[in-house]
């Protein structure tokens, strides 16, 4: 029964959801755990438990708040109900409630320490909230508890890939492929395995895995796109073009795939076709440097000189702004740090001017604004200082430190400035960044 559930789980997991572009997936970590996975698992785990089945039914009808309430009530009544906690943790994960989700799943794992599924669910929750490091432990436990748990091997492989532990990642992904056999479910671990091979500079092996991925799942657009890149590196231009065309046909809204196809056309001297796809890529991702670079070249080669010039200007501005941002960051922080040093040395007026100059360079840096505000307050410039502090809190309303500083300042500020006029306390000196 459990084996059957696992296959179903994989079959309905994110593997068959529309995948994000591969780069985004790798950078951002696993996409959010999809409720369907948890629900199917939960249904299995809770087969004999009517109240939790009721919750599942509510979820199936889209009545999520009611389901959450019901599950909370169940847990209130029976805190040791691991099934309810597992389902609630998964639902809260979908709701973006990190604290609640992790708490429920952690408790579920505590109640069911031998459950590979529970460990895997906890790992997926950590990963969904961007904490791949924390996810690793539960995934490792999941595969230790059940070495034939293919999805857990895939998850662990991905976490290890992201951590740069390529050999270990390869081992788990290979194991997943072995467990899944020649089924469509094996396409995703093949795809990840190709990424490991690419990182290991083994492009031929990467191409072989990608070939297998698209053979198992011909609608796997990302795999087609990466296969095109691998073939291009192997100087198989015809193969690359075919793969890119397939990727774009499957995922026309994928800007990366459109850019790759357009660039391939450009390499082959088909400037007009290149421009069409690169324009589409640029529409989907207007600030992509690679796209703009190829697009301006394609337009120029296609004789669309004015359009090419406009794109070139856009690209040049993008590049310049990137440099300016870097330069401003260094200059602004350096000024701030000089201010902090002056403040510590007792030269408050000198510090104030440095902070002011730093803020001119980096008006969006809230930390520098707070330093500036505190310097103003320490010089008795209550009105300006409080205004700057309020602006800092407005920009970062979640920052408890900034809030506390504002509260302190208001407590000490004279009544005419809206404060409570309490005896002054020494405010912290400026912070270096």
């Amino acid at each position, binding site marked *: 029964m459990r084996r059957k559930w696992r296959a179903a789980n994989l079959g309905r997991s994110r593997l068959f959801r529309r995948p994000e572009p591969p780069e985004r997936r790798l950078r951002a970590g696993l996409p959010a755990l999809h409720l369907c996975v948890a629900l199917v698992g939960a249904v299995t785990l809770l087969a004999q438990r009517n109240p939790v089945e009721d919750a599942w039914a509510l979820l199936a009808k889209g009545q999520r708040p009611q389901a959450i309430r019901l599950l909370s009530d169940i847990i209130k009544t029976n805190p040791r109900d691991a099934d309810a906690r597992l389902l609630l943790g998964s639902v809260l994960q979908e709701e973006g409630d990190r604290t609640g989700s992790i708490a429920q799943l952690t408790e579920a794992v505590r109640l069911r320490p031998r459950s590979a599924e529970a460990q895997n669910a906890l790992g997926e929750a950590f990963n969904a909230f961007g904490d791949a490091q924390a996810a690793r432990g539960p995934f490792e436990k999941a595969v230790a508890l059940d070495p034939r748990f293919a999805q857990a091997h895939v998850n662990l492989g991905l976490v290890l890939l992201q951590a*740069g532990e390529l050999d270990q990642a390869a081992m788990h992904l290979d194991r997943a492929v072995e467990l899944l056999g020649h089924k469509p479910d094996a396409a995703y671990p093949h795809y990840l395995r190709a990424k490991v091979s*690419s*990182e*290991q*500079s*083994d*492009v*031929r092996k990467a191409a072989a895995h990608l070939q297998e991925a698209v053979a198992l799942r011909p609608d796997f657009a990302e795999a087609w796109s990466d296969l095109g890149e691998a073939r*291009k*590196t*192997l*100087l198989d231009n015809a193969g690359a073009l075919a793969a890119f065309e397939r990727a774009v046909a499957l995922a026309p809204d994928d800007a990366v795939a459109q850019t790759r196809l357009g*660039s391939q056309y450009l*390499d082959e001297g088909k400037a007009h076709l290149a421009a069409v796809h690169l324009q589409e890529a640029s529409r989907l991702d207007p600030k992509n*440097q*690679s*796209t*703009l*670079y*190829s697009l*301006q*070249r394609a337009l*120029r080669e296609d004789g669309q000189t004015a359009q*090419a010039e406009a794109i*070139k200007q856009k*690209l*040049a501005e993008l*590049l*310049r702004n990137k*440099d300016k*941002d*870097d*330069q401003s*960051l*260094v*200059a602004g*922080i*350096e000024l*701030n*740090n000089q201010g902090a040093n002056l403040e510590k040395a007792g030269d408050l007026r000198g510090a104030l001017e440095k902070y002011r100059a730093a803020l001119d360079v980096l008006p969006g840096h809230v930390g520098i604004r707070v330093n500036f505000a505190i310097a103003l307050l320490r010089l008795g410039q209550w009105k300006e200082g409080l205004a700057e502090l309020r602006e800092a809190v407005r920009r970062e309303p979640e920052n408890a430190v900034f809030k506390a500083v504002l509260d302190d300042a208001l407590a000490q500020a004279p009544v005419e400035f809206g404060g409570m006029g309490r005896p002054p306390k020494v405010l912290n000196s400026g912070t*270096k*960044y």
Partner: protein
Amino acid sequence: MLSLTRRSLLSLLAWPAARLYSQEARSGHGMASRGVKAAPRGKPSGLPFHARFTDVANQAGLRETVVCGHPRHADYVIEAMSCGAAFLDYDNDGWLDILVLTGSRFGDPPPTASQRLYKNNRDGTFTDVTVKAGLFRTGYQYGVAVGDYNNDGFDDLFITGWDQNMLYRNNGDGTFTDVTKEAGLWNAQPRFGSGCTFLDYDRDGRLDLFVSNYVAFDLETVPRAGTSTSCNPGGIFCGPRGLRYGHHSLYRNNGDGSFTDVTAPSGIGKVEGGYGLTAVSADFDNDGWPDIYLACDSTPSLLFRNNHDGTFTEQGLERGVALSDDGMEQAGMGIGIGDFRMDGNLDIVKTHYSADTPGVYVNNGKGDFRDMTLQAGLAVETRYVCWGIAIADLDNDGNPDLFCVTGGIYPEVQENYNTPRVVFRNLGKGRFEELLGQAGPGVEALHSSRGCAVGDFDNDGDVDILIVNHNEPPSLLRNDVSGNSHWIKVKLHGVRSNRGAVGGRVTVRYGDKVQAQEVLSQSSYLSSNDSRLHFGLGPVTTVDLEIRWPLGQVENLNGVAADQLIHVTEGSGITRTEKFK
């Protein structure tokens, strides 16, 4: 038993550095690297390579250390970039002499760290004549351009540095005079001069001067390594990213020993940006007018196209030489110019940071380039930070090869700080093959190198290599070519054109091949090569030459015998020949 070759060990060591670098790049500082993986290597061709390089610097007398910061750390970017070198014949005796620049050390400047001029003793050794020649000068030096700016028949020197550049006039008696101020080239404000090249941009027969600046560097505002987290956390030096751009200048030669700053009217000043390093002037679009290509670190490289009216237009992005093939900035360090596809057009190879490939830009003859790095076979090498580069026929087989020097930049954090030299053998048809362990001990040796220059210092008919090593004496790689391949060298002497014929082009037809070269004032990394153009010819024993002088006159010389140096004087054909041993 586990067997690790040196190369494989280096390959492993390269990983942490690349990963570290990626982190730096993400923080918005340091140098740009795309973090690319090496492309797979093809099967070895199995062809023998007939060049073998041995480092003879010590026995040749090149023993002065090139100082560049502290051996184990660099406080500022001015200590890390190091410098170039030149092969030149300053006394016109027919034997190449050597100029090696140097840097200094912040807070502890060695009093003897000076640029060094070594006179060729014609027996494989050199004599340090720095003081006698009037060239002793300490401080931070970076680039050298060689050219006869006053048309007196003797090559002069322009040397960039922080905080001042210098123009040295060759007096023709073995000495030089610092004429920077009287030439109008003294900077009122400190500058971080880097690339520089002489060129006759207005075709008036006098050499003008292009100078790039790397970053706007001020000790008052740039934090010292380890003292601030504002720039490059981790205790390494700050820059170039995060620092303000250096700006680039063009000076017109007035013909009276002085120059006029024409940066603004020429259009060079319109360009905002670019951490400029090596500068090369050559005619990329075959219109007879010299253009300028500037390798820029971590920012788009710049191509200034000559408009024939005293102005330039920057066209790097549209011409395809500003960014990588996928549109990313690269850490442009050095530039090799040559006709490695042998179609009569000048192609470009640019060196970059580790975890990136060199850039191979193929010229269609109209000055439009296509990035063919992958197709050329250079994407197989991403392990090293590459600096100086030359396109030169190392084994005289008739196909110009690639040679580049490598070296780490962060001694504090890079375990693979000292790395080998790299040779790519030209297989023909635009394809290269990296040679591993086949080019001699001089290539395999580990150093942190920067500039390099190619030239035949022992006049034996091949190409030797001079290399600047960071905080070590230079290397002098003597090339011993075996086999029966032939060669020809061409030395141009301008009459109406500038005397050194900088910008002159020689196109040689040999067998079924054609190859173009130009006399360059700077290339590689901030360095200057032997101005005698060298062509390997393989089995061919006679060649036809077309010479296009800087002012446009074209001369054809047919049926010229191989294995000699020919001196060609503008308007007079071959005026002298020299047979080497």
